[in-house]
């Protein structure tokens, strides 16, 4: 306890510590400020939307419809219409969509209401959770079982073919409920042959002997995880592109746990519309490419909008694809390896034999319902490749571009095979009025709690109370600043509760120190010396006490539910900032004011 490196200078902080402290608080203050200005609902009109109206004309037109426009910004062809009332956002989107040529380019967004100099410094408001902002949240469950089943069925086909080719008599194979293959074989030689074949062609399957000469075959754990990840990833991709169509800039689509996808749509009020968009189905087909201008052909556009003439009926539907994966070929070229089931393999082999050297097109189509609930189909060509040789049930497509593009294609190709049923397992809608009410209540509680605490501390520890109060206020400033700065930090209603709790508990650090100082004064030390030993002896206690709460904050965060994570975040951050301000900032203040005070009979 008595080791003090700076015994010569009691209660002295060097200048750089003050600089660090002041700079931290100023930066955090700037970071916290935009939050207090809040955000305004806005409609963003993209550069490609084809808006011809000038901002003034646009404002007049909207005002004629009873919309109060706060401001209209035009930059690089993009137009941002900032609104006064949040509930007019959808109305404005509908109104503006009749004034532009490409309504798809309209998105709902939020614009910071902070003055522009603050925004130019790069500071953004704290992101609000759905419970504060209002919106719809879905949790989707991706059922991976059918994917395993497809894999199993394809293997059953291959095995039957192998048994026939090898002329093994008395063998049978079937797939059971748990997607495990049960193979009955006549003798050990046959078993060895099957094992050999499996090892060569299907290394991802796990084999085990059964009584007699049978085999049990199932997907290895590793492969199951891999398949699951691929499936969920693919669904994520699909969901993202669909949500994009809804035109909500702040929409969130992310994986949650092993096989769940969380979708958050702030500002959306009608879950039914969003559901239609989410619940689309996708499929894939291979087409023979005809010469452009052919009569007996169908015209499909590729991604860049170039028309491609293809045969009216596809060679093969995507439901025959068992698996598709991107890899790097012998020459370092990106390629996509495709596995077909037996029927698909036969069809493909027949078609490709007569069409070597000719191109083959792959199309991707999606059936979905639009926001009004009408079914619609979109179909486009995702790749055109030349057939190099006769193809069987396993072939590869080259010329897909870079490795990333090949991966993208594989992802799309798998759409046909790995369409895992997606179900909505959780759905929450928070009305905008309730969200606004939650914010109001939460901050009213924070204000009241803060007010009482400041008053109490000022009255209880008269001489040192103001130090604790300054520490508490800077604690809140830093906490708000951090919340705005940390990427991915979201403020939720339980998060505000965490803030309120932090206010109550943050003063604890100062209380502990002040009580120690009181003790030391009672023992007859001078004020300056009491301050020094008081801070030193309180430190380990403060650390111990905060550490346990930190443990619970970390555990809570790992539960991973949105609002609760918000609570864990503010609680945990609050502990850190309260230690910073309670120990460091208040010491810096006390050093300046009372550091040299050698009087002995001080009352704190």
């Amino acid at each position, binding site marked *: *306890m008595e080791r003090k490196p700076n015994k010569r200078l009691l209660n002295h902080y060097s200048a750089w510590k003050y600089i660090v402290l002041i700079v931290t608080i100023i930066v955090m203050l700037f970071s916290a400020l935009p939050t207090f200005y809040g955000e305004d609902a806005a409609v963003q009109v993209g550069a490609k939307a084809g808006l011809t109206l000038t901002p003034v004309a646009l404002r007049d037109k909207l005002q004629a419809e009873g919309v109060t426009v706060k401001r209209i910004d035009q930059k690089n062809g993009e137009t941002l219409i900032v609104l006064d009332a949040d509930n007019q956002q959808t109305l404005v989107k509908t109104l503006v969509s009749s004034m532009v040529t490409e309504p798809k380019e309209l998105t709902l967004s939020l614009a910071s209401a902070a003055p522009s100099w603050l925004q130019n410094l790069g500071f953004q408001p704290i992101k609000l959770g759905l*419970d504060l902002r209002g919106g719809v949240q879905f*949790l989707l*469950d991706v059922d991976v079982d059918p994917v395993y089943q497809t894999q199993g069925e394809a293997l059953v086909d291959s095995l039957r073919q192998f048994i026939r080719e090898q002329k093994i008599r008395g063998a049978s194979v079937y797939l059971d409920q748990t997607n495990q293959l049960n193979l009955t074989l006549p003798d050990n030689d046959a078993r060895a042959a099957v094992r050999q074949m499996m090892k060569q062609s299907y290394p991802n399957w796990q084999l085990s002997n059964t009584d007699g000469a049978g085999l049990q075959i199932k997907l290895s754990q590793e492969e199951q995880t891999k398949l699951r990840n691929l499936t969920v990833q693919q669904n994520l991709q699909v969901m993202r592109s669909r949500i994009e169509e809804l035109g909500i800039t702040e929409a969130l689509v992310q994986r949650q746990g092993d096989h769940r996808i969380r979708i958050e749509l702030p500002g959306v009020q009608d879950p039914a519309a969003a559901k239609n968009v989410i*619940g689309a189905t996708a499929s894939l087909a291979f087409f023979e490419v005809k010469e452009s201008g052919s009569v007996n052909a169908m015209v499909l556009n590729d991604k860049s909008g170039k028309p491609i003439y293809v045969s009216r009926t596809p060679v093969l539907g995507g439901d025959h694809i068992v698996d598709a994966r991107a890899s790097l070929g012998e020459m370092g070229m990106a390629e996509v390896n495709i596995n077909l089931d037996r029927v698909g393999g036969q069809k493909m082999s027949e078609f490709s034999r007569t069409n070597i050297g000719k191109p083959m097109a792959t199309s991707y189509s999606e059936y979905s319902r639009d926001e009004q609930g009408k079914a619609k189909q979109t179909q486009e060509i995702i790749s055109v490749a030349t057939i190099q040789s006769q193809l069987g049930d396993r072939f590869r497509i080259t010329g897909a571009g870079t490795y990333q593009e090949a991966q993208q294609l594989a992802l799309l190709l798998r759409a046909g095979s790995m369409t895992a049923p997606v*179900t*909505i*397992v*959780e*759905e*929450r*809608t*928070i*009305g905008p*009025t309730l969200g606004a*009410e*939650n914010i109001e*209540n*939460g901050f*009213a*509680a*924070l204000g*009241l*709690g803060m007010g*009482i*605490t400041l008053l*109490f501390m000022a009255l*209880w520890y008269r001489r040192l109370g103001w130090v604790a109060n300054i520490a508490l206020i800077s604690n809140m400033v830093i906490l708000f600043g951090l919340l705005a700065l940390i990427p991915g930090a979201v403020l939720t209603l*339980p998060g*505000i*509760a965490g803030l*309120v*709790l932090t*206010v*109550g*508990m943050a*003063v*604890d650090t100062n*209380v*502990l120190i002040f*009580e120690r100082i009181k003790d030391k004064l009672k023992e007859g030390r001078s004020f300056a010396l009491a301050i020094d030993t008081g801070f030193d002896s309180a430190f*380990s*206690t403060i650390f*111990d*006490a*905060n*550490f*346990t*709460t930190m*443990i*619970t904050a970390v*555990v*809570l965060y*790992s*539960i991973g*539910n949105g*609002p*609760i994570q918000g*609570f*864990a975040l503010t609680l945990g951050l609050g502990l850190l900032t309260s230690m910073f301000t309670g120990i460091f900032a208040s010491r810096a203040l006390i050093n300046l004011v009372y550091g040299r005070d050698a009087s002995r009979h001080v009352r704190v």
Partner: protein
Amino acid sequence: MKNINLTKWRYVSSAISILLMITSLAIIGVKGFNWGLDFTGGVVTEVQLDRKITSSELQPLLNAAYQQEVSVISASEPGRWVLRYGDIKSADTEQSNVDIQQALAPLNSEVQVLNSSVVGPQIGQELAEQGGLALLVAMLCILGYLSYRFEWRLASGALFALVHDVVFVLAFFALTQMEFNLTVLAAVLAILGYSLNDSIIIADRIRELLIAKPKLAIQDINNQAIAATFSRTMVTSGTTLMTVGALWIMGGGPLEGFSIAMFIGILTGTFSSISVGTSLPEFLGLTPEHYKEQVISDTP
């Protein structure tokens, strides 16, 4: 004289604590919890209707529309109702949500849906498991930390105080049948951290005194430690109670369960850290001997 009184008071309050805990466990066992939507799955909708409409008008309409007993609870404001019912079918089928506007059409009132949540049963199950796991993991981590920082007899006092607080808060929710949802679980976990806060600060003092005054009887050391930290305990508990109180008054419906749980947790946390938190180590035979060898290494 004063010291003896304090010892006596401590013993009496410990007895009260243990009695309360047994009662609490019995209450939890008998009444069980009113699990919230987060854990059971189902549908909760909050609607704003005309103020004149009563629950007896609502109930039959809703029961008919959803073909089951719908729980209708009036919310914080007049005209606001919280409706809760089990999910009719799995959440993905279109028919699962009978339109509330349609169901309440005969009332001729403007129906404004403030919020609605549909939680599938498997999600609820999972969250309940995760919540339980979180509680367990937090306990284990804290146990690990305590046993590292303190001698086991001293640590057991803090740990018992903690269990006492959690059980008491849980019993309160079982007794009043207030909804036990995810936010309340968060409060319970926060209480874990908070309750320990008080206990640790007293335990820190006990440890300090054991090292500084090894001649003193353990009873006196405990009493001194409590006296030395008493004003701090009161101030911190006081400010935290005040802010949580503010949250209770101003925070509105969604945070009510949270603030009540925290409020009770802080009260019992303060009480238990003084009563059982100090008496148990004494009962288990904590003496200055236990801190003799670690004196040099353990002091900061």
